[in-house]
């Protein structure tokens, strides 16, 4: 049951986007999100949607995987649209009972919807095309200037990748403990919220003990293999920009300039 949970949502396939350096994808996503908040007219969103459509096409990830990400924020999206629709002051268009829909409200709601949809699809595209491992590497490299101000960048990245490695192991363990406790009469599925929360104690205590034991073993194994922090370490798979990465950066710059220039035009 617990084993079905996959970590992240990486979609395995071969594509131009998958092969890009994680730094390009991370930077690209951030820039794309920024661009979404710069637009003043619908034309900007149109360009943004077009750009995203091209990238999605290039990534070979089926569109339904993007929609999956949308489902999670559907509720949030509805509420935002409702509030904007009914609560924006301006010229009334339709009045239903006590609620008034204004022209400004309609415009606002549409803008919000476009913004959120593109934002979610854009960022899930990044996680769909980058392995968690790669993402960690990219972040480590991008944040490395922060080392100057004593941010433990390497340590954080190492912690993240170890966590990623141990999540499936601990999940399996949870499953095992759960079965063991059920066999001894523990009940995880009945009763009210409080009873269920209490039932988790016999699950969590052994899990934590085992996690600490594992951590201890792992630390020893890492030391035995000469791990002594990020200092003086070389990389087996160093991140090096290739031609296609520069190409992607160029594409990104073109998109940024065109979309923001067009998006900020006042169309009367």
């Amino acid at each position, binding site marked *: 049951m617990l084993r079905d949970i996959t970590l992240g949502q990486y979609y395995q396939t071969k594509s131009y986007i998958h092969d890009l350096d994680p730094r390009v994808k991370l930077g690209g996503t951030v820039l794309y999100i920024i661009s979404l908040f710069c637009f003043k007219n619908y034309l900007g969103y149109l360009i943004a949607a077009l750009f995203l459509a091209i990238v999605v096409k290039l990534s070979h990830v089926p569109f339904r995987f993007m929609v999956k990400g949308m489902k999670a924020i559907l509720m949030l999206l509805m509420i935002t649209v409702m509030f904007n629709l009914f609560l924006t002051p301006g010229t009334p268009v339709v009045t239903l009972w006590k609620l008034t829909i204004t022209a400004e409200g309609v415009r606002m709601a549409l803008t919000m919807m476009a913004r959120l949809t593109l934002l979610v699809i854009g960022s899930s595209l990044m996680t769909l095309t980058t392995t968690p491992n790669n993402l960690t590497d990219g972040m480590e490299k991008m944040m490395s200037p922060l080392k100057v101000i004593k941010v433990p960048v390497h340590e954080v990245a190492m912690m993240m990748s170890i966590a990623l*490695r141990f999540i499936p192991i601990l999940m399996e363990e949870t499953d095992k403990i759960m079965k063991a406790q059920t066999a001894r009469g523990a009940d995880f599925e009945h009763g009210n919220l409080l009873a269920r929360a209490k039932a988790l104690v016999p699950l969590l205590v052994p899990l934590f003990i085992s996690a600490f034991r594992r951590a201890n073993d792992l630390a*020893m194994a890492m030391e*035995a293999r000469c791990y002594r922090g990020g200092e003086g*370490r070389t990389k087996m798979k160093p991140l090096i920009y290739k031609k296609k990465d520069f190409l992607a950066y160029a594409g990104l710059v073109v998109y940024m300039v065109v979309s923001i220039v067009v998006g900020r035009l006042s169309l009367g």
Partner: protein
Amino acid sequence: MKIVKARDLVFEYIRRDEEGNVEGISTAVDHVNLDIKQGDFVAILGHNGSGKSTLAKHMNAILYPTEGTIWVDGKDTKDEDVLWDIRQTAGMVFQNPDNQIIGQVVEEDVGFGPENMGVPTKEIWERVEESLRAVGMYEYRKNSPNKLSGGQKQRVSIAGVLAMHPKCIILDEPTAMLDPNGRKEVIRAVRALNEVEGMTVILITHYMEEIIHADRVYVMDSGKIAMEGTPREIFSQVERLKSLRLDVPQVTLLAYELQKRGVKLPNGILTTEELAAAIKAL
């Protein structure tokens, strides 16, 4: 030169109560003397709590002696300046395969040691390939360690140590958590390393079958070295082994029982073939 040499090695675990007062001291390693030759396959045997793992951890400078000295490749483990040299010279494989694999892909895990040592990228790849081939796991290099069997995981761990180019490899009960097939797999890989590559192997175990091919065997009991010799010398003392709470392999036990009943068999029979030959010769 001896690769591992210990003189009067003592290690004490100090148990403390909640206020930090000393509750008791247990001596895990008690005046041990060891001399391990380069290129040997050495087995250290003992039941649970005999101090064999504690001894192993001294060879990798994870634990430091309370008294006495241990030298690895001529270097004193108490000397902090050579700590990383020692850990590179004497690679260590632990019991639990899950808790010693750091990478999320097999090849990345094997590359972890060389990365830490600051080996250039190109050479890391060469070392990873050569190490994975040495343990027969090269085809699995792109797999996730979570999808491997216990024996395969342990072979990856061995490869991870090999990639650091150690002079000797210490295996601390590498088969304790494996099924019989996984156990055979690991022992076969370790033997190949010793025979083909001439690697010094120090195998800590409580399975008697695994030490048959060793050049030298040390049997530990409550921190002391109780017996020492070739496997044949050790196995010919069945009563002594039983008193140390160790199980003798079935064939040896059978030969021993036959001997007791008056069948004239040689001492210390180790394999089925040997016993068959000995019975035929009667």
